[in-house]
């Protein structure tokens, strides 16, 4: 089980959280100019890297807040936890 440090509640067990999948997926727009390809990519296709990954997590059983996690999908090491709306500089973690 992962021990994830919620930015508000501190370290809590993985079962208190829900993983929201890949972080920083942006809705393409303006909507009338988006190709089917770009729209399908936005709706259905996600990165599935072996190694460093950025994910959204929700502390559903605790404070109910969303946040971002930089996690290594091989070692499960969590390199950083950072608020929604922020990005990590490339190469700064994971």
């Amino acid at each position, binding site marked *: 089980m992962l021990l994830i440090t919620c930015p508000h*509640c501190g370290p809590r067990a993985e*079962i208190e959280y829900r993983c929201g999948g890949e972080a920083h997926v942006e809705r393409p727009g303006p909507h009338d100019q988006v190709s089917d390809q770009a729209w399908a990519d936005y709706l259905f296709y996600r990165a599935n890297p072996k190694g460093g990954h950025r994910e959204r997590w929700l502390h559903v059983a605790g*404070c109910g807040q969303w946040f971002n996690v930089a996690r290594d999908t091989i070692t499960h090491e969590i390199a950083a936890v950072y608020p929604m709306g922020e990005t990590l500089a490339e190469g700064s973690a994971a």
Partner: protein
Amino acid sequence: MADSNPTALLRRTGPDVADIVRPGLSVRTETGLGIAKLRIFGRAADARFQEIAGIAPPLPCREIGSGDLAFAWLAPGEWLITGAEAAVAAWVERATALGADDLLAIDFSHARTAFLLEGESARAALAAHCPLDLWPDAFPAGAAARSLLGDTGLFIARLADTGDAPRFRIIVDQTMAAYAGRLFARA
């Protein structure tokens, strides 16, 4: 219960959960506990809390007492208020009377069931179903948190110890009270 208060006059219809008393562990249903939630929207929620409640808000993951009431931090901008049923109802009424549109105070005493757990085995009984670290370093008296109890959610606060044994108040959905009772009966 104050007889004049219509909220307090609502009959509790929750299932009766038998108290568990055995060496090292007692689990008792806490009757007459008022439970309310305060939500404040906006970035300056803590300052607004101070304006409304007249006290500094509790730190994250902590519960503080003020008069007859206890205020526990649940999330940024969200607090749980517990105390005597009439006192909580009166507090909620006062907060609602402000008429402000950036806050929401709701008395949901009758939607929740509270238990008092105490004894040397209280931590072990909780640890069987709750993923929190309840040892004193991580969860001293005055700590409060929302977490899981088996398949349901719980609010837990550590009250002042009785002697050497820890004492916890846990609050679960009223519909899950019988389930929580069964978990402790087997723990």
